[in-house]
């Protein structure tokens, strides 16, 4: 249970179309993350699946049943909101039981579900408190608990960790991953944080301007980005791009380092900062001048300008003795990513 299919989904607000024909299949028990920059339509898409908004055209199926015109209440889904949306005048117990009472469930069943969720999320001793008396993390647990007690077909989570501090976010992220493993229920998770996406997802859906750019596993996206946008969006620091004219089956990077290219003409070469290393011999290299050095202890992030002025970033392990204004010569072992003039991937990798 929990297979969700989107077929040709579009959504317009007035004359502005914000979702442009999305097709997507989410498998049973899968944790799929929608990721993308602000305004890419990820929350809108989640609301369409939830039934809080109606698509302008297209079809939404849950377990093979067309639910496009079915109300949010009857889709059997549970949502965790960015703001938690806990009822401030109710206790934690009342917040958890509120939705179940609507279904005229026996009180004993409600009590046992609440106790189970309380044990699972370690909020059993907070049951008589109100949301204002809870910390951010505790509120988050209650919001998740409210979704769990309903035993839904799928969980929809709209940036659930964005209001937490960095440390708590890390802890909650791990707990969410464990929770998904234990419940084995389909989860759709919206975030703009790629670390959350990479660590939690079975598959990631990268969205931009209301369209799906790529759907793949986290490592699939990292290793084989299908276009320039995905290549630049996934991975931190961002991938370095060099626009070069290739001739005779190779392209020459600033500094003279040659890269084999399957075609002639304009190409974009993408190299991840982690794949660059200091050149140790006098062979042709990627050359530039260091602009900024960020020493993080275990690794050092170096911002430089290549000899043709293209900005580039590299992450070197350890604490190399380098400073701003110095020349730097870099090389790499892995074949770089190649993109054509249309921004699409050229090499199969």
């Amino acid at each position, binding site marked *: 249970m929990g297979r969700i299919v989107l077929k040709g989904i579009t959504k317009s607000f007035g004359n502005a179309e914000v979702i442009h024909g999305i097709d997507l299949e989410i498998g049973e028990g899968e944790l799929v993350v929608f990721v993308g920059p602000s305004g890419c339509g990820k929350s809108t898409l989640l609301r369409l699946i939830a039934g809080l908004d109606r698509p302008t055209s297209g079809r939404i199926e849950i377990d093979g049943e067309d639910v496009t015109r079915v109300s949010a209440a009857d889709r059997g889904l549970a949502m965790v909101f960015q703001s938690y*949306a806990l009822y401030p005048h109710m206790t934690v117990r009342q917040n958890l039981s509120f939705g179940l009472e609507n279904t005229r469930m026996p009180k004993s069943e409600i009590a046992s579900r609440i106790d189970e969720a309380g044990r699972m999320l370690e909020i059993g001793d907070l049951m008589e408190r109100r949301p204002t008396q809870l910390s951010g993390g505790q509120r988050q647990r209650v919001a998740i608990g409210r979704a769990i007690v309903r035993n839904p077909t799928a969980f929809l989570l709209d940036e659930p960790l964005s209001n937490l501090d960095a440390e708590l976010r890390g802890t909650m992220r791990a707990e969410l991953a464990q929770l998904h493993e234990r419940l084995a229920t389909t989860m759709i998770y919206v975030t703009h944080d790629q670390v959350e996406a990479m660590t939690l997802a079975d598959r990631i859906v990268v969205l931009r301007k209301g369209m799906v750019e790529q759907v793949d596993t986290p490592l699939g996206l990292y290793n084989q980005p299908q276009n320039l946008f995905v290549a630049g969006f996934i991975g931190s620091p961002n991938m370095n791009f060099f626009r070069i004219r290739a001739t005779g089956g190779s392209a020459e990077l600033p500094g003279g380092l040659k890269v084999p290219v399957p075609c002639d003409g304009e190409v974009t070469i993408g190299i991840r900062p982690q794949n660059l290393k200091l050149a140790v011999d006098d062979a042709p290299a990627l050359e530039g001048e260091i602009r900024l050095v960020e020493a993080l202890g275990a690794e050092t992030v170096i911002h430089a300008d290549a000899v043709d002025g293209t900005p580039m970033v590299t992450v070197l392990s350890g604490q190399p003795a380098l400073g701003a204004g110095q020349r730097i010569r870099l090389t790499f072992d892995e074949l770089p990513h190649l993109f054509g003039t249309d921004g699409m991937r050229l090499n199969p990798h």
Partner: protein
Amino acid sequence: MAGFGKTLGRAVTWPLTLVARAVDPPLRVWQRWTGTGGMAAVFLAPNLAIFGVFVLIPLVLNFVYSMTGGTGILLDQRSFIGMEQYGRLLECEDYTRRITCREDQFWTAVTNTATFVIFQVTLMVTVSLITALILNRNIRGRGFFRAVFFFPVLLSPVVVGLIWRWILQRQGLLNLITVNLGLEPEVWLNDRFYAFAATVGVSTWAHMGFYTLILLAGLQAIPRDLYEAAEMDATPPMRVFRRITLPLLGPNFAVVLVLALIRGVQIFDEVYVLTGGGPGTSTLYLTQYIYEVGFASILRNPGLAAAASILMGAVLVVLTLLQLWFSRRAEGRRAR
């Protein structure tokens, strides 16, 4: 052009600059001497002076008048009689029969006012809430309707009274409509029931925009997420209203209730213009009674009117304190 603007600006600010320069040195000395607390007193002083002259002194004078007798207006023409006016107002042989009271008109006004307040406040709060709920929805022409419902608040109470008298009088608009519909014309304002209903309805019409606005602000402060969470939980609309909207609207509701109650007890202008307290004394409310006893009747008695207004003030203070206690308790419960 820029030069002209500069000159104009200087001309406008010149008197202010002069005043500022004149008061600056003594204020600096005062601040050094008394600290920021003393400066606060300086800035509060003008307001306190106005409050003192127009509220505090009249209040004290009113209390003094309530313990004097005679028909003279000036205090030196009046004699001190202690609590006699209060005794006169409150003295009854049988409190269940108004006719046995020494000042039976006062008790008529009290009973009428209490009845009016019960009906008017209930109607006002209900209608304002329903209107606010409708205006809070995403309906077409929402801005227009908000303006329409608020418009009567901008009218003077006398204008409100005149408009409705023109509608309800014997040859008024309402009778014109009923006659055209083939019905018998009704003497609306000469009938005890209709006249009372008219005072309740007209005052509600005149003031509901204000209360609607307060409730609308409260409704808009409730996060949309809460309603969406309830929608995901398949909560029926009435349960959403009862369990989410009403509790979260509590503080605004308390404000509306207190204000409506106070204004209900104080009702005068529009009713005086509309019915003049009639027919008979069926719409004679407390403020009109005070006005007539103090200023309008031949045997005017300012002392008795002052005593009645002190009693009315005491009732209002008690009601306000009660409401504040209830609303604070409700807020405290929510915060716990």
